[in-house]
Protein backbone atom coordinates (compact mmCIF):
# COMPACT_ATOMS: atom_id res chain seq x y z
CA UNK A 1 0.00 0.00 0.00
CA UNK A 2 1.27 3.45 -0.71
CA UNK A 3 2.53 5.15 2.42
CA UNK A 4 0.93 8.62 2.13
CA UNK A 5 -2.48 7.03 1.54
CA UNK A 6 -2.09 4.70 4.49
CA UNK A 7 -0.92 7.52 6.70
CA UNK A 8 -3.88 9.75 5.71
CA UNK A 9 -6.32 6.92 6.43
CA UNK A 10 -4.72 6.09 9.80
CA UNK A 11 -5.06 9.71 10.92
CA UNK A 12 -8.74 9.75 10.02
CA UNK A 13 -9.33 6.35 11.65
CA UNK A 14 -7.67 7.55 14.86
CA UNK A 15 -9.71 10.76 15.06
CA UNK A 16 -12.88 8.84 14.23
CA UNK A 17 -12.15 6.32 16.96
CA UNK A 18 -11.82 9.15 19.49
CA UNK A 19 -15.29 10.29 18.40
CA UNK A 20 -16.75 6.79 18.75
CA UNK A 21 -15.31 6.45 22.25
CA UNK A 22 -16.56 9.85 23.41
CA UNK A 23 -19.97 9.30 21.82
CA UNK A 24 -20.42 6.12 23.86
CA UNK A 25 -19.32 7.81 27.06
CA UNK A 26 -21.74 10.68 26.45
CA UNK A 27 -24.67 8.24 26.20
CA UNK A 28 -24.31 7.51 29.91
CA UNK A 29 -22.84 10.92 30.88
CA UNK A 30 -24.92 13.31 28.75
CA UNK A 31 -24.33 16.23 31.13
CA UNK A 32 -20.53 16.13 30.96
CA UNK A 33 -19.86 19.47 29.27
CA UNK A 34 -16.07 19.10 29.21
CA UNK A 35 -16.42 15.87 27.25
CA UNK A 36 -19.00 17.46 25.00
CA UNK A 37 -16.57 20.24 24.12
CA UNK A 38 -13.78 17.69 23.51
CA UNK A 39 -16.20 15.90 21.20
CA UNK A 40 -16.84 19.07 19.20
CA UNK A 41 -13.10 19.66 18.87
CA UNK A 42 -12.49 16.16 17.52
CA UNK A 43 -15.52 16.37 15.28
CA UNK A 44 -13.96 19.36 13.50
CA UNK A 45 -10.58 17.63 13.34
CA UNK A 46 -12.20 14.50 11.94
CA UNK A 47 -13.96 16.46 9.18
CA UNK A 48 -10.67 18.02 8.06
CA UNK A 49 -8.86 14.67 8.01
CA UNK A 50 -11.74 13.06 6.09
CA UNK A 51 -11.62 15.78 3.44
CA UNK A 52 -7.84 15.49 3.14
CA UNK A 53 -8.13 11.76 2.53
CA UNK A 54 -11.11 11.96 0.19
CA UNK A 55 -9.57 14.73 -1.96
CA UNK A 56 -6.63 12.47 -2.70
CA UNK A 57 -7.97 8.93 -2.62
CA UNK A 58 -11.76 8.95 -3.11
CA UNK A 59 -14.94 8.70 -1.06
CA UNK A 60 -15.18 7.00 2.31
CA UNK A 61 -18.83 7.79 2.97
CA UNK A 62 -21.49 5.69 1.25
CA UNK A 63 -23.51 8.46 -0.41
CA UNK A 64 -20.68 10.92 -1.13
CA UNK A 65 -19.53 9.70 -4.54
CA UNK A 66 -21.45 7.08 -6.54
CA UNK A 67 -20.25 4.99 -9.47
CA UNK A 68 -16.64 4.67 -10.50
CA UNK A 69 -15.21 6.46 -7.48
CA UNK A 70 -17.21 4.37 -5.00
CA UNK A 71 -16.66 0.89 -6.42
CA UNK A 72 -12.95 1.19 -7.02
CA UNK A 73 -10.60 -1.17 -5.20
CA UNK A 74 -9.34 -1.63 -2.58
CA UNK A 75 -12.22 -2.39 -0.22
CA UNK A 76 -11.54 -2.41 3.52
CA UNK A 77 -10.97 -6.16 3.70
CA UNK A 78 -8.62 -6.26 0.72
CA UNK A 79 -5.11 -6.78 1.91
CA UNK A 80 -2.83 -4.39 0.13
CA UNK A 81 0.27 -6.16 1.42
CA UNK A 82 0.78 -7.98 -1.87
CA UNK A 83 0.01 -5.09 -4.25
Amino acid at each position, binding site marked *: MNKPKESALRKYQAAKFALIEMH*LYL*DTHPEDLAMLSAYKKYEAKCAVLKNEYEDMYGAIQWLDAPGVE*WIKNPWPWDSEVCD
Partner: protein
Amino acid sequence: MFCYEKMLEYPVKIKNPNPKYAQLIISQYGGPDGELGASLRYLTQRFSMPYAELKGLLTDIGTEELAHLEMIGTIVYQLTRNLSYDEIKKSGFDTYFVDHTTGVYPTAASGLPFTAASMQSTGDLIADLSENLAAEQKARVTYDNILRLVDDPDVRDPIKFLREREIVHFQRFGEGLRLATDRLNSKNFYAFNPCFDDNCPCNVAK
Protein backbone atom coordinates in the same frame (compact mmCIF):
# COMPACT_ATOMS: atom_id res chain seq x y z
CA MET B 1 -30.88 3.49 8.86
CA PHE B 2 -27.22 2.80 8.56
CA CYS B 3 -24.52 4.57 6.55
CA TYR B 4 -21.47 2.63 5.42
CA GLU B 5 -17.97 4.04 5.68
CA LYS B 6 -15.51 2.38 3.35
CA MET B 7 -12.84 1.68 5.97
CA LEU B 8 -12.29 -0.53 9.01
CA GLU B 9 -12.66 0.82 12.54
CA TYR B 10 -9.07 -0.30 13.20
CA PRO B 11 -6.55 -1.46 10.58
CA VAL B 12 -6.09 -5.15 9.69
CA LYS B 13 -3.05 -5.97 7.60
CA ILE B 14 -1.93 -9.59 7.82
CA LYS B 15 1.17 -10.61 5.84
CA ASN B 16 1.20 -14.36 6.49
CA PRO B 17 -1.85 -16.56 5.81
CA ASN B 18 -2.57 -19.14 8.51
CA PRO B 19 -5.66 -21.34 8.07
CA LYS B 20 -5.45 -22.73 11.62
CA TYR B 21 -5.75 -19.23 13.06
CA ALA B 22 -8.64 -18.48 10.71
CA GLN B 23 -10.45 -21.57 11.96
CA LEU B 24 -10.16 -20.33 15.56
CA ILE B 25 -10.95 -16.66 14.93
CA ILE B 26 -14.08 -17.42 12.86
CA SER B 27 -15.73 -18.05 16.23
CA GLN B 28 -15.83 -14.31 16.84
CA TYR B 29 -17.70 -13.96 13.51
CA GLY B 30 -20.52 -16.44 14.09
CA GLY B 31 -19.84 -18.15 17.42
CA PRO B 32 -21.89 -17.97 20.65
CA ASP B 33 -20.11 -14.83 21.91
CA GLY B 34 -19.18 -13.41 18.52
CA GLU B 35 -19.70 -10.01 16.94
CA LEU B 36 -22.71 -11.01 14.82
CA GLY B 37 -24.63 -12.12 17.90
CA ALA B 38 -23.50 -9.00 19.76
CA SER B 39 -24.69 -6.56 17.10
CA LEU B 40 -27.99 -8.42 16.66
CA ARG B 41 -28.55 -8.60 20.42
CA TYR B 42 -28.10 -4.86 21.03
CA LEU B 43 -29.79 -3.56 17.91
CA THR B 44 -32.78 -5.82 18.65
CA GLN B 45 -33.07 -5.05 22.36
CA ARG B 46 -33.38 -1.33 21.55
CA PHE B 47 -37.05 -1.52 20.66
CA SER B 48 -38.24 -2.33 24.18
CA MET B 49 -35.72 -0.15 26.00
CA PRO B 50 -37.59 2.57 27.91
CA TYR B 51 -34.85 5.10 28.72
CA ALA B 52 -33.25 7.50 26.25
CA GLU B 53 -29.68 6.95 27.42
CA LEU B 54 -30.10 3.22 26.95
CA LYS B 55 -31.63 3.54 23.49
CA GLY B 56 -28.55 5.59 22.58
CA LEU B 57 -26.15 3.13 24.20
CA LEU B 58 -27.64 0.06 22.49
CA THR B 59 -27.66 1.83 19.14
CA ASP B 60 -24.04 2.96 19.47
CA ILE B 61 -22.63 -0.31 20.78
CA GLY B 62 -24.72 -2.38 18.34
CA THR B 63 -23.40 -0.29 15.48
CA GLU B 64 -19.81 -0.56 16.67
CA GLU B 65 -20.24 -4.35 16.84
CA LEU B 66 -21.06 -4.32 13.11
CA ALA B 67 -17.69 -2.62 12.55
CA HIS B 68 -16.09 -5.38 14.65
CA LEU B 69 -17.86 -8.03 12.57
CA GLU B 70 -16.25 -6.50 9.51
CA MET B 71 -12.83 -6.57 11.18
CA ILE B 72 -13.17 -10.26 12.09
CA GLY B 73 -14.33 -11.10 8.56
CA THR B 74 -11.29 -9.24 7.25
CA ILE B 75 -8.91 -11.14 9.56
CA VAL B 76 -10.37 -14.49 8.47
CA TYR B 77 -10.29 -13.48 4.80
CA GLN B 78 -6.66 -12.33 4.95
CA LEU B 79 -5.58 -15.45 6.86
CA THR B 80 -6.97 -17.72 4.14
CA ARG B 81 -5.44 -16.16 1.03
CA ASN B 82 -3.35 -18.22 -1.41
CA LEU B 83 -3.54 -21.52 0.49
CA SER B 84 -2.18 -24.73 -0.98
CA TYR B 85 -4.15 -28.01 -0.71
CA ASP B 86 -1.37 -29.29 1.45
CA GLU B 87 -1.64 -26.40 3.95
CA ILE B 88 -5.40 -26.85 4.05
CA LYS B 89 -5.13 -30.55 4.86
CA LYS B 90 -2.28 -30.27 7.37
CA SER B 91 -3.77 -27.35 9.32
CA GLY B 92 -7.15 -29.00 9.92
CA PHE B 93 -8.86 -26.22 7.95
CA ASP B 94 -10.11 -28.95 5.57
CA THR B 95 -13.29 -29.52 7.61
CA TYR B 96 -14.27 -25.86 7.08
CA PHE B 97 -12.99 -25.79 3.49
CA VAL B 98 -15.17 -28.71 2.38
CA ASP B 99 -18.34 -26.69 3.08
CA HIS B 100 -17.24 -23.09 2.50
CA THR B 101 -13.97 -23.15 0.51
CA THR B 102 -12.43 -19.85 1.71
CA GLY B 103 -15.71 -17.95 1.94
CA VAL B 104 -16.37 -16.32 5.31
CA TYR B 105 -19.29 -18.09 7.01
CA PRO B 106 -20.84 -17.28 10.41
CA THR B 107 -19.99 -20.30 12.52
CA ALA B 108 -18.40 -21.17 15.83
CA ALA B 109 -14.90 -22.67 15.74
CA SER B 110 -16.46 -25.94 16.93
CA GLY B 111 -18.53 -26.06 13.70
CA LEU B 112 -21.93 -24.98 15.07
CA PRO B 113 -23.43 -22.46 12.60
CA PHE B 114 -24.55 -19.07 13.90
CA THR B 115 -27.70 -19.29 15.94
CA ALA B 116 -29.83 -16.64 17.62
CA ALA B 117 -30.24 -19.16 20.44
CA SER B 118 -27.04 -17.75 21.95
CA MET B 119 -28.61 -14.32 22.50
CA GLN B 120 -31.71 -12.90 24.19
CA SER B 121 -34.14 -10.02 23.91
CA THR B 122 -36.45 -10.38 26.90
CA GLY B 123 -38.32 -7.06 26.78
CA ASP B 124 -37.17 -6.52 30.38
CA LEU B 125 -34.47 -3.89 30.72
CA ILE B 126 -32.82 -5.36 33.83
CA ALA B 127 -32.66 -8.82 32.28
CA ASP B 128 -31.39 -7.48 28.94
CA LEU B 129 -28.71 -5.24 30.46
CA SER B 130 -27.55 -8.07 32.74
CA GLU B 131 -27.29 -10.32 29.69
CA ASN B 132 -25.22 -7.67 27.93
CA LEU B 133 -22.76 -7.40 30.82
CA ALA B 134 -22.25 -11.16 30.66
CA ALA B 135 -21.98 -11.08 26.86
CA GLU B 136 -19.16 -8.52 26.95
CA GLN B 137 -17.25 -10.60 29.49
CA LYS B 138 -17.74 -13.79 27.46
CA ALA B 139 -16.48 -12.10 24.31
CA ARG B 140 -13.48 -10.75 26.26
CA VAL B 141 -12.69 -14.32 27.39
CA THR B 142 -12.85 -15.57 23.79
CA TYR B 143 -10.39 -12.85 22.75
CA ASP B 144 -8.15 -13.79 25.70
CA ASN B 145 -8.21 -17.40 24.48
CA ILE B 146 -7.41 -16.34 20.91
CA LEU B 147 -4.43 -14.36 22.27
CA ARG B 148 -3.30 -17.49 24.16
CA LEU B 149 -3.27 -19.48 20.91
CA VAL B 150 -2.03 -16.97 18.30
CA ASP B 151 1.58 -15.73 18.00
CA ASP B 152 1.52 -13.59 14.84
CA PRO B 153 1.72 -9.88 15.85
CA ASP B 154 -0.23 -8.87 12.69
CA VAL B 155 -3.17 -10.90 14.02
CA ARG B 156 -2.72 -10.14 17.72
CA ASP B 157 -2.79 -6.37 17.19
CA PRO B 158 -6.41 -6.04 15.93
CA ILE B 159 -7.52 -8.82 18.33
CA LYS B 160 -6.13 -6.79 21.23
CA PHE B 161 -8.06 -3.77 20.01
CA LEU B 162 -11.28 -5.80 19.90
CA ARG B 163 -10.61 -7.21 23.39
CA GLU B 164 -10.25 -3.69 24.77
CA ARG B 165 -13.58 -2.69 23.24
CA GLU B 166 -15.33 -5.51 25.16
CA ILE B 167 -13.96 -3.99 28.37
CA VAL B 168 -15.18 -0.49 27.49
CA HIS B 169 -18.61 -1.80 26.47
CA PHE B 170 -18.87 -3.71 29.76
CA GLN B 171 -18.12 -0.47 31.60
CA ARG B 172 -20.77 1.50 29.66
CA PHE B 173 -23.43 -1.23 30.13
CA GLY B 174 -22.63 -1.19 33.86
CA GLU B 175 -23.33 2.54 33.92
CA GLY B 176 -26.49 1.92 31.92
CA LEU B 177 -27.72 -0.68 34.40
CA ARG B 178 -27.06 1.76 37.25
CA LEU B 179 -28.98 4.51 35.46
CA ALA B 180 -31.89 2.10 35.00
CA THR B 181 -32.01 0.76 38.56
CA ASP B 182 -31.75 4.30 39.99
CA ARG B 183 -35.02 5.11 38.27
CA LEU B 184 -36.97 2.14 39.54
CA ASN B 185 -39.42 2.50 42.38
CA SER B 186 -37.36 2.15 45.57
CA LYS B 187 -39.87 -0.42 46.83
CA ASN B 188 -39.06 -2.58 43.82
CA PHE B 189 -35.97 -3.81 45.61
CA TYR B 190 -35.52 -6.92 43.51
CA ALA B 191 -35.86 -5.02 40.22
CA PHE B 192 -38.18 -7.42 38.46
CA ASN B 193 -40.07 -6.88 35.21
CA PRO B 194 -40.06 -3.07 35.37
CA CYS B 195 -41.07 -2.56 31.73
CA PHE B 196 -44.18 -4.61 31.31
CA ASP B 197 -46.44 -4.00 34.27
CA ASP B 198 -48.62 -0.89 34.25
CA ASN B 199 -47.48 0.44 37.59
CA CYS B 200 -43.77 0.39 36.82
CA PRO B 201 -41.97 3.76 36.86
CA CYS B 202 -40.89 3.66 33.23
CA ASN B 203 -44.48 3.08 32.11
CA VAL B 204 -45.85 5.71 34.47
CA ALA B 205 -43.37 8.17 32.95
CA LYS B 206 -44.72 7.64 29.42
